[in-house]
């Protein structure tokens, strides 16, 4: 029971980080049909920018994090404008490969500036141990859960209440109709990339706190695929639920079965979901078959 609780909390917090990475992915896919293979690198930038501002520049962590988020928005906007916009309407393979190329460039930039040596993340988050019943969890893992959930609620509000959020849903629904209602598609795409970059940066900060400042942070980029397929490619709620399920599944399998099976279980789930229910738990059912 104690082990179970321990695993559940740690799996859930990992899952919420996956959810943060996945939400950005979903927002981009929903509005512009682009599969972002560079999501992991956006997380990487979040981690390293915070490390840079807080440790290397010596700013207070609040300012550092804020600055990280602002720069992340800038990066998101720049990527959309320079790389993605010329490719609107190109086939899927081009979209996949351009973000793959992007991830290569982004990783090279991070490595060139900060080098491959892993560093310690600035210790501004509480690290004391929290007792939940019989389980002991470190607070930095626990804190990922409320922050992720808060951000996801904010996003939900954004999609329901704000002009840009509603425009984004309109474009996801029917691009032609949205265009004829005077919605600027490039603007919405730009907003989507900004949101993706910010959520990824927050995810990167959380993750950097847990695994340290290193290239490993970007490995989460690939974990996003099982999460979004399970939850449904175009569903934000699905990203959260999918993230939680994949995170939990990983630690349960790692804890109870072992043998490195936790590394592969998300992909087995991915294949099963694709076979049985390709649109995932909450995705829109528009798979075309021949």
């Amino acid at each position, binding site marked *: 029971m104690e082990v179970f609780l321990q695993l559940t909390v740690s799996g859930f917090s990992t899952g919420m980080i996956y959810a943060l990475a996945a939400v950005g992915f979903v927002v981009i896919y929903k509005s512009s049909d682009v599969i972002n293979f560079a999501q992991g690198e956006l997380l990487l930038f979040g981690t390293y920018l915070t490390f840079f501002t807080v440790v290397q520049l010596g700013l207070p962590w609040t300012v550092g994090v804020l600055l990280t988020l602002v720069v992340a928005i800038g990066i998101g906007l720049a990527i959309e404008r320079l*790389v993605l916009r010329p490719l609107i309407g190109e086939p*899927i393979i081009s979209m996949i490969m351009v973000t*793959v*190329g992007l*991830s290569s460039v982004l990783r090279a930039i991070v490595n*060139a500036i900060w080098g491959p040596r892993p560093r310690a993340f600035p210790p501004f988050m509480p690290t004391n141990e929290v007792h939940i019943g019989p389980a002991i969890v470190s607070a930095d893992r626990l804190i990922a859960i409320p922050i992720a959930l808060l951000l996801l609620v904010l996003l939900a509000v954004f999609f329901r209440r704000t002009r840009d959020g509603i425009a984004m849903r309109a474009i996801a629904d029917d691009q032609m109709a949205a265009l004829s209602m005077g919605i600027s598609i490039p603007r919405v795409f730009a907003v989507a990339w900004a949101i993706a970059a910010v959520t990824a940066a927050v995810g990167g900060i959380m993750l950097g706190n847990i695994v340290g400042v290193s290239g490993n942070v970007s490995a989460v980029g690939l974990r996003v695929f099982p999460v979004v397929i399970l939850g449904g490619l175009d569903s934000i709620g699905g990203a959260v639920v999918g993230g939680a399920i994949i995170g939990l599944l990983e630690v349960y399998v790692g804890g109870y079965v072992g043998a490195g099976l936790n590394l592969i279980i998300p992909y087995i789930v991915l294949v099963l979901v694709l076979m049985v229910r390709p649109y995932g738990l909450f995705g829109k059912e528009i798979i075309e078959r021949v």
Partner: protein
Amino acid sequence: MALDCGVFHTTYESDMRLRRTPVERARMALFVAFLLVFPFIASPYWLNLANQIGIATIGAIGLNILVGYTGQVSLGQGAFMAVGAYGAGLLTLRLGLPWGVSILGGCILTAAVGTFFGLPSLRLKGLYLAIATLAAQEIVEWVVTHWTALTGGTEALVIPAPRLFGARMNSDFNFYWVVTVLALLTAVFTANLFRSRIGRAFVAVRDQDVAASVIGVNVFRTKLLAFATSSFIVGLAGGLIAYYRNIVTWERFTLETSIFYLAMIIVGGLGSIRGAFFGAALITLLPAAITNLGRALQDSAPAVAVQLPNIQQAVFGLVIILFLIFEPEGLSKMWRNVKDYFHVWPFAYRRGGSRGG
């Protein structure tokens, strides 16, 4: 197909030829002559590069059959090459088969595995299929590294050097002939495949699967056949790597490998055999050129030399992005543009229509 000015085909045979004009045939002869002379004038360093390009060309043609011609995006190239390499290596190590037979066995095994992972294409298209092949990549990689009893896990698999008539075939010079002949055979096979009913069905599925099924193409079977054909050739590339290096390690066949090969066919040109060769050459030579540049700069600008791996990675990404934005049809289109330019010189207009090949 656009006709060249002044060339009139009077028989079906001449119309259906792969090289249809004397100029094209002369260019091909020149290329083959170069391939024949090259190993005698090249240094071992260049021979090594040429062999790498040859293997990459085979792999890229294989991937192009699936992605470029049939339109099924695959991120599982690395995994399929791993099956070919481990298959070929293990058949020799465990069953003592001669290397030619075990490479063939590896190809057949890869075709089987490729077909299996092609099964999701029954229901999935485009992006979903790409993600399914991503899962295939991760699963095969995991099996290779964790099935220690069979593959040796993360330890390298050392296989005996291939021998033919008592000569070691994996020296740079000898292996060059193996690779070149196989690459040419693969190219000719593929060129002819797409003049046959089966190959045309592949292209029909890519262009409009619904229309293809209306005119009597069994779409699912065609997709599976494309996966099988493609994986067979990809397995050949994997087997060749195994025997060229004498050693099989899983690091050679990661997702990064898949991406490298996708980059080759994007940069070279999707759905083009010539493009597969161009792309394989560029993506193989680029890191080598940057490494050489770094060596040259080692003394004068050590700061740059240190950043070399990062420069390599950034250039690789930039090449993909720039090609996709500025020349989505890749090097083979650029080659065509150059040809057209000289063809109509001194006039500036282009020949109408585009030609595959």
